[in-house]
């Protein structure tokens, strides 16, 4: 029983981290119908920024978010204006091609800048745990979970309590209507993309502490994140959270009780099953409204 509870606990914690990593991806899809395959590469880029801040200035990776989030926001804005805006009216498949090309390009630039070597961010708590009775709670995982709660809460408040958030939601629910009442759809799109990329600030910080990473690490992540958003329902942030928690627990249980061999496969099996049985995912039926709700 202890083993089961411990496994579920670890699964929930990692699931929270997965939710953080997937939130920007699903936000961008929900509002813009863009499958941003480069989301993983932005996470790794943010992790590399975190690494630099930690190595050069000794800034704790969790505090570094204060710097990396606006930086990633700016990068997202520029990328949208310079690149993504050009395919606004093109079919979804174009966004996959474009962002895949973008991912490969950024990976190449990261390889040249930081070399193809593994980086690790190892603040004092990276290999420590809290021990509670028979259970252990890895500190970096717990802090990562906390980061996820903070970022997702901030995202929620942004979308529901600010004018910009309402503009984003209205643009996703009814673009024509939003335009009629004076919402600048193009500015909203840029804002949404930038906010989606800004979430990689927190995600990259957590990633950098939990794992050794290098430029090509993003392939591992984008595959998983797509599994999460497909399960939750493309475009639904609450769906992504539920999907991430479910998949975190499913992965941990599979590793613990079936075989580590199938742990990673869970993500891909889920994509197939969801597409076959419920193509809109768990919470995708009210897809547009769910973007912010």
């Amino acid at each position: 029983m202890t083993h089961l509870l411990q496994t579920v606990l670890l699964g929930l914690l990692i699931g929270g981290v997965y939710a953080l990593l997937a939130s920007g991806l699903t936000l961008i899809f929900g509002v813009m119908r863009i499958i941003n395959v480069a989301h993983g590469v932005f996470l790794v880029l943010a992790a590399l920024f975190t690494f630099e801040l930690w190595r050069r200035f000794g800034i704790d990776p969790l505090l570094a978010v204060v710097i990396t989030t606006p930086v990633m926001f700016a990068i997202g804005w520029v990328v949208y204006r310079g690149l993504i805006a050009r395919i606004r009216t093109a079919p979804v498949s174009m966004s996959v091609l474009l962002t895949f090309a973008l991912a490969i390009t950024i990976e190449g630039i990261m390889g040249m800048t930081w070399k193809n070597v593994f980086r690790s961010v190892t603040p004092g708590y990276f290999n420590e745990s809290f021990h509670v009775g028979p259970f252990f709670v890895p500190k970096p995982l717990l802090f990562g979970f906390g980061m996820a709660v903070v970022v997702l809460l901030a995202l929620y408040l942004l979308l529901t309590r600010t004018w910009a958030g309402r503009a984003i939601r209205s643009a996703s629910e009814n673009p024509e209507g939003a335009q009629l009442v004076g919402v600048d759809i193009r500015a909203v799109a840029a804002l949404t993309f930038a906010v989606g990329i800004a979430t990689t600030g927190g995600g990259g910080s957590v990633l950098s502490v939990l794992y050794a990473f290098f430029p090509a690490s993003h392939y591992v992540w984008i595959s998983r994140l797509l599994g999460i958003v497909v399960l939750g329902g493309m475009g639904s942030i609450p769906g992504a959270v539920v999907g991430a928690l479910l998949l975190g627990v499913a992965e941990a249980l599979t590793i613990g009780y079936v075989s580590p061999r199938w742990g990673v496969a869970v993500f891909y099996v889920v994509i197939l099953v969801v597409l076959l049985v419920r193509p809109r995912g768990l919470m995708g039926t009210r897809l547009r409204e769910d973007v912010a709700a």
Partner: protein
Amino acid sequence: MGRGSEEGRAMMRLRPKLVALFAVLLLVGAACGGDDEDGAETGATGATTGTTGAPEGEPIKIGISLPLTGDFSQPGGAAEQGYRIWESLTNEAGGLLGRPVELVILDDASSQDTVVADYNRLISEDDVDLLLGTFSSLLNIPASAVAERNQMVYVEPAGGSPDLFDDGYEFLFFAQQATAPHQADLFVEWVLSLPEDQRPTTAAYPSQDDPFALPVIESLRDQLTDAGIENVYETVYPPDTTNFDTIAADIQNSGAELVAQGAVFEDGVGLVRSFQRIGYNPQVLFQTSAPSNSDQYAEGIGAENTEGVFYAVSWHQDTATPQNAEFVAAYDAAYGGIPAEDAADAFAAAQVLQAAVEAVGDLDQVAIKDYLHANAVDTVLGPLSWDETGAPQGQFLLAQWQGDQAEIVAPAEVATSETIVHPKPEWAS
């Protein structure tokens, strides 16, 4: 970095990429018209040639294709450096057969198709006199077929998958000490040499499902189990596994005193981090290639936690092997720092070809391959010799982290440290 580590890592990069693509294509559906999305295929084939004249006469041209871009670009770049150092040292020392050597290096962009085109071009258009191999089993398998068909000797620095030696090629030689199943032989010898009261009685064998890590661990497991060390845990996990806390806890529960992990890199760091978090410290810890990534490994698990970790490796900068000191100094002068293991392996492959050509006295490919099948050659890795399939017949070196750096602890003749740390000290944190 080890052949196993680099190659495994590169393959690991490729697999998620394909899976990601697959997932994306599923999402997009059939409407998507793109068919050229694979990053591994990007990058044009470009040629670079280098000439360092000193000796007399027409240069001997040696054709090589390397993955200078794409998935294997990091080890491919290191291999190029190793080859270039050999080229300049050889020309400074009077060349080969009194003639200068000139390397013709093409970029295969880590693509199996391009590597085949490259070697065909080197042989038929560039009229090279000799060939040297590329990096990784993935690329060496098709490339060695081209060489074999053209009856040209093909010494390759990095491709130890048993598959390479299944086709009975006569012109293929792998210029490292051992194929994957024999990498840990010296570690087994050391474990079994321990007095009864110090020898671990139980062992756990987690391994990545990797063509270089897994055979090492399977062979190691069989040898230790036969010797009476009880196998209390084994598992195989896929390359992009990131979650090691559950595996670590299961190993702790198994009570294993020895852990031997088939670890490429992140998985090696990941499992050790999890061990630290749950407070589990095995008496003996062996990992296949993760610990050979010196700085990256120390950074990943904390330098103070490396003490006592074992691994198998083909080369070390301090061993007293032929030309090793010269190689290390020339590398430092040219590129700065200590060469990567991949650079040393490439240098050794060139040494093998050089030794055979000099022994034969001309460029007769059949005589060169016959010589290599019959003789051992001294290299920076130590002596190498081959069976009739071109598979090497030696042993990898056994290395151990001691005092923040990697030392060779066996075999005795090339050891850089006379002590072996045992049992492994507690984690530092």
